[in-house]
């Protein structure tokens, strides 16, 4: 088991697209306590933005709901974020994670959300139940600077 986090946070916000910026900025502000590089911070903001946008567009299908952003940080520089919705959920998580797959073809989405999350973070895990919702967990270990 991992050691206890040295700090954690949790935020609930309405599933409105204007909150995408709010959520990634909050995640970045939280991450700043670990003194990340600008590149690390940019990667975290992008990954969190992808997960939150997915929750709003796909989880809630642009209907109103609550998205929860959780963050934890550990002594060794590990950061984890969870983005949780209680929306429609997914039957097939693997299919949703394929490059170029998009569940909203009319939105002019690139279908690259999960690919970007995976390449900008060290580890991405998704759990989902149809009718119950989806949780995306993003992990990134920051390079320690002395």
């Amino acid at each position: 088991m991992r050691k206890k986090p040295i700090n954690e946070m949790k935020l609930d916000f309405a599933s409105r697209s204007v909150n995408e910026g709010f959520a990634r900025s909050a995640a970045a502000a939280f991450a700043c306590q670990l003194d990340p590089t600008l590149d690390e911070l940019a990667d975290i903001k992008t990954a969190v933005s992808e997960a939150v946008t997915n929750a709003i567009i796909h989880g809630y299908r642009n209907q109103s709901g609550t998205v929860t952003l959780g963050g934890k940080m550990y002594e060794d520089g590990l950061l984890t974020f969870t983005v949780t919705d209680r929306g429609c959920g997914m039957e097939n998580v693997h299919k949703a994670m394929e490059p170029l797959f998009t569940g909203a073809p009319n939105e002019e989405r690139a279908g690259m959300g999960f690919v970007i999350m995976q390449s900008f973070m060290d580890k991405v895990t998704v759990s989902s139940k149809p009718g119950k919702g989806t949780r995306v967990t993003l992990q990134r270990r920051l390079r320690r600077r002395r």
Partner: protein
Amino acid sequence: MDGAVYQNGVLRVPVNGEIDHHGARVWRDELDELIRVHRPRELLLDLQGVAFMDSAGLGLLLGRYRHMCTLGGRLVLLHAPASCVKMLRLSGADRFIYLKEERKEESV
């Protein structure tokens, strides 16, 4: 659109702000309107003022690339931020979208 310049077939547009799912929709409509009016052979997007971009921004660029293709023109990006270049490479779109003077420092 503020600052858009059309000259000798090149439509140059400064793009700024945070290009996420929320912000991309406005840009899509405004860029398509400018393309419709000018029918340029080159769309030159100056991304110097872009503070943030995620896959919605990538979708915006790919959509405008396709739009320019239907006109027989091309898309060129000026001062693309590092995160944008990273996403273009991931998607393979850097093979057909031209990059000029990439931005070195990532703004936060």
